[in-house]
């Protein structure tokens, strides 16, 4: 598109967010803020066991409790003919072996497979009544051995979690050229080996999930209000596969949603439960998750165990990379789960480097834990962490500078488009530019002086660098179809120009913190030349929006915004025909810019609002050629992924006596393509950085051997707080995406993708005098102290021992 700049509110302006007024005045409408007339409340009884046979469920006492309207178990769900919770992605492994895809029942049937697995539902007049009654349900269980870890699940003779998943393996998959990689290793000067576990995280959006089912017995229409990032996807998955309700009888509304980070992509059992039970009881049914319940029922993230080997030549050029990963799927396959370690992770193994031969293998494993799926970054943080730690380890073993080894292996700007050995073709980037800017912003050159100053204060200071890229803007439908996706990943925009020239934009993406109502309005205002105040962005309701695939994978602007551009192109094309008629000129001579349709080279013009009025009041109108009205819909299917990247530099100080790690400086320079609203982009990056720092330093999900979740509340799962996060130095350095009309790449996940290795590289650097070569995430005080203490008792009163 032709981009002009309105400094105040168009592309490139830090327009203050339009959604803020309602959020700041308490007028946001989150799902739990809604109540439907006659509403009942659901409470879900969950399994206390990680793995157990259900021998019987006695609901009689519960059903007789005050206010109880219904108690449902798997028997009721099965009698009603409901389907299981579907998975949206089918991975085909080595030798054409299709993944094991066990049934994921709405309510546990026969067996429970993780602590928190839903077993029964009580629907009552009040939430307390439902909860009181749930305690009266008697479930007899026979406990079975827990499979708390992938090692336990893969052990010879381990019991099967699902009868139809032999060995508790979901799939065993590979990518790249094993023979070429072996050949590269055969010529290597050095092979560097690295093993790591990418720690399991709980997304913990601040708004707990909630869902309200409603049913109109007269029309037969079901409505689900839910905390979702993608209401159309929920309608498709729940309607077609679980409830078997056609689209025109099922409306899904995702109102204001308080953060998602991936955890609200998936179709969850509770959505089906409230929608179905509302129809059974002919009354609305509401369920609101408690935080403790969220820990046991929201999909977790990460949890990969990986071994990598890097082959280098004498000069430090990467010759080959071999990676083998175990990926925890949890107890059942969540919507995107199989795609995360494979197509969203292993395809990034080239990173920003020219490694010519790569072979990756992923074995996905069922365990008796909460299902694992995409969490902010989804697969790319895992690979980025692996590569950027591996490169640091390689630099150390080669005796090379950490920056120099990166520069030596960067894909250069003149090498784009760059075909990697692991399927992806990068379109653009300049890794040296973001590295240079970050080094400058972090005063990298001055680090050793700061380290010495810190040492004088008894603190160990370290600096760490990560140069990364990621693939987002998901994704070309044909490609993902070949890779196993069961849906297209295009996006939809419907643009309705009203008679007076105001504009309603209906987008299939969903905003749950990203500020779409502002960014998209800027985009539309710019392209159509109408004031921002005349543009409305509508999202989150299948009853209003034609279709959409939702918001995840930093796709909303790159894919959803591109759909808007395409729809606006159609609006403008039609407008030119109308203008040609009104101005008595040929269509070819009509130019459109700044909201004016003009006869080229003349001052004869019609304003946008005059054209829209003519379209709706077609008295003087080319009615034989074109229809009245001014409304267009576009489906945009991306041509490729987009490839944001950049450089993150972290500086830490360690208190050797306590092992506490403080992030004292963090500098990021990211290339996210064209920036529409710099304020929002910086905010997205800052938030991602905090999550990345959280993963690197404090966040961890811990199960015991019995499969009990030990980190099951904010008392034991460390959420980053203001004192644990530094101020950030954030900047952008732009190369444009070459294949979408806006040149945008995506900014939602880069912060969480690039930062964890920068933090750990800094921690390892801080501990360099102790001979430490690696620290697993999270680098908690306990872990750091234990490392220091084991290496040398200096932090302890060794003299006294």
């Amino acid at each position, binding site marked *: 598109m032709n981009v002009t700049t309105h400094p105040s509110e168009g592309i490139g302006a830090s327009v203050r967010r339009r959604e803020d007024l309602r959020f700041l005045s308490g007028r946001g409408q989150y799902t739990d803020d809604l109540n439907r007339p006659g509403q009942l409340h659901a409470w879900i009884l969950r399994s206390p066991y990680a793995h157990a046979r259900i021998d019987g469920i006695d609901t009689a006492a519960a059903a007789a409790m005050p206010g109880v309207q219904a108690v449902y178990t798997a028997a009721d769900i099965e009698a009603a003919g409901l389907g299981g919770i579907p998975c949206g992605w089918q991975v085909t492994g080595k030798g054409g072996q299709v993944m094991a895809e066990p049934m994921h029942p709405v309510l546990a049937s026969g067996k429970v497979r993780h602590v928190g697995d839903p077993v029964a539902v009580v629907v009552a007049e009040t939430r*307390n009544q439902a909860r*009181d009654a749930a*305690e009266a349900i008697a479930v007899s269980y026979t406990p079975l051995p827990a499979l708390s870890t992938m090692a336990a699940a893969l052990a010879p003779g381990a019991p099967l979690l699902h009868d139809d998943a032999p060995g508790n393996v979901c799939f065993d998959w590979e990518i790249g050229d094993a023979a070429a990689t072996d050949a590269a290793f055969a010529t290597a000067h050095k092979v560097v080996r690295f093993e790591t576990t990418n720690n399991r995280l709980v997304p913990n959006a601040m708004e707990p999930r909630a869902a309200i089912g409603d049913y109109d017995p007269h029309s037969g229409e079901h409505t689900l209000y839910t905390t979702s990032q993608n209401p159309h996807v929920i309608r498709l998955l729940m309607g077609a596969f679980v409830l078997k309700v056609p689209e025109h009888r099922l409306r899904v509304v995702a109102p204001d949603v308080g953060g998602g980070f991936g955890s609200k992509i998936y179709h969850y059992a509770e959505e089906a439960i409230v929608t179905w039970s509302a129809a059974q009881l002919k009354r609305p049914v509401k369920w609101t998750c408690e935080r*403790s319940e969220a820990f046991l029922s929201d999909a977790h993230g990460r949890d990969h165990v990986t071994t990598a080997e890097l082959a280098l030549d004498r000069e430090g050029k990467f010759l080959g990379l071999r990676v083998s990963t175990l990926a925890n799927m949890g107890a059942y396959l969540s919507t995107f789960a199989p795609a995360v370690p494979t197509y969203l992770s292993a395809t990034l193994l080239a990173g920003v480097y020219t490694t010519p031969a790569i072979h990756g293998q992923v074995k996905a494993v069922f365990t008796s834990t909460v299902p694992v799926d995409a969490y902010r970054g989804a697969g790319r943080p895992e690979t980025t962490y692996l590569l950027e730690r591996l490169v640091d380890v390689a630099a150390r073993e080669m005796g090379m500078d950490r920056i120099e080894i990166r520069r030596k292996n960067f894909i250069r700007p003149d090498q784009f488009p760059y075909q990697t050995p692991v399927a992806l073709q990068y379109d653009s980037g300049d890794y040296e530019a973001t590295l240079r800017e970050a080094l400058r912003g972090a005063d990298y050159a001055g680090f050793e002086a700061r380290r010495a100053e810190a040492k004088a204060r008894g603190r160990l200071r370290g600096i760490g660098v990560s140069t990364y890229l990621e693939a987002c803007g998901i994704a070309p439908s044909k490609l993902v179809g070949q890779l196993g996706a069961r849906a297209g990943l295009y996006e939809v925009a419907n643009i309705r120009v009203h008679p007076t020239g105001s504009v309603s934009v209906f987008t299939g993406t969903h905003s749950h913190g990203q500020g779409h109502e502002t960014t998209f309005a800027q985009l539309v205002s710019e392209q159509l030349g109408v004031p921002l105040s005349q543009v409305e962005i509508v999202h989150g309701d299948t009853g209003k929006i034609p279709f959409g695939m939702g918001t995840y994978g930093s796709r909303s602007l790159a894919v959803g915004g591109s759909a808007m551009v395409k729809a606006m192109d159609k609006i403008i094309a039609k407008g030119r025909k109308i203008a040609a008629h009104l101005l008595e000129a040929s269509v070819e001579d009509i130019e459109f810019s700044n909201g004016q349709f003009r006869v080229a080279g003349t001052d004869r013009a019609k304003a946008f609002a005059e054209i829209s009025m003519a379209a709706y009041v077609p008295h003087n109108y080319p009615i034989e050629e074109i229809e009245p009205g001014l409304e267009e819909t576009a489906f945009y299917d991306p041509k490729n992924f987009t490839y944001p990247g950049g450089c993150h530099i972290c500086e830490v100080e360690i208190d050797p*006596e*306590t*092992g*506490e790690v403080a992030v004292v400086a963090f500098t990021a320079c990211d290339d996210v393509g064209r920036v529409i609203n710099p304020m929002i982009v910086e905010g997205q990056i800052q938030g991602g950085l905090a999550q990345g720092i959280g993963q690197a330093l*404090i966040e*961890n999900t*811990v199960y015991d051997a019995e499969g009990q979740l*030990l*980190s099951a509340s*904010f*008392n*034991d*799962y*460390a*959420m980053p*707080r203001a004192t*644990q996060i530094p101020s950030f130095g954030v900047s952008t350095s732009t190369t444009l995406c070459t294949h979408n009309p806006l040149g945008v790449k995506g900014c939602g996940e880069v912060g969480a993708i690039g930062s964890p290795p920068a933090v750990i590289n800094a921690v390892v650097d801080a501990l360099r005098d102790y001979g430490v070569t690696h620290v697993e995430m999270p680098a*908690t*005080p*306990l872990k750091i*102290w*234990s490392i220091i*203490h084991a290496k040398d008792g200096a*932090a*302890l*009163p060794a*003299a*006294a*021992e």
Partner: protein
Amino acid sequence: MYDFAYHKPSSLADAVKLLAEDPDAKPISGGMTLLPALKHRLNMPTALIDLSGIAELRGIKREGDAIVIGAMVKHFEVATDPQIMAAIPALARMAATIGDTQVRNRGTIGGSLANNDPAADYPAAALALGATLITDRRQIPADDFFVGMFTTAMEPGELLIGVSFPIPEKAGYAKLRNPASRYSMTGVFVAKGPKGVGVGVNGAASCAFRQKEMEAALAANWSPEAVANIRQPANDLNSDIHGSAEYRANLVTVMAKRAVADAG
């Protein structure tokens, strides 16, 4: 939460009477620990006796060489009270680190002491300063008061009405917060006072305790170096996903050093 009856007596006598009449009733002060436990249905009291209407439980006063603080005095008041800041500044500084602003605005010193959470801050201060706990029926030295995890020497129905802290010559506090809950992972309160030197430790074990080896060392030489080489045995210390017993043992030494430095 299970439902319960609610009473808000206006005198100590009425509160004691209500508690005596119903052994399953529980007193509630700030409720910062009790209410989360009730929300998780860990507890099923028949009645809650709200102590906030009882004037006798309020107030901070200096009595001779001691500061006497009413049980219902909030952490925020302790943190900002001019008499405490002048007489036992370390106690005020400690109170300013309890929980968060909103916890300090509701939580009370009496509630914290009577609950005796192993990770609560106050018990270490009470032990180190040689405080006396005052109940509706007797006075209990801190050494005898803290019996075990969530357990004190108080009998069923006995109410804490205040605590008397002898004013020390100097005192200091240092702790490491648990990265998740932000409670004390291990904290050490040190005091040099009329009764000698006290070193109270919280967070490390099932109950706050005095570190007597450090007390002796500090009595001989009040300096961080005096405790730097004293190692707390790890045997009976807490171990969880955030801190092993050995780690907490180390923290006892480190925090003791820092507390002495804090005391000056």
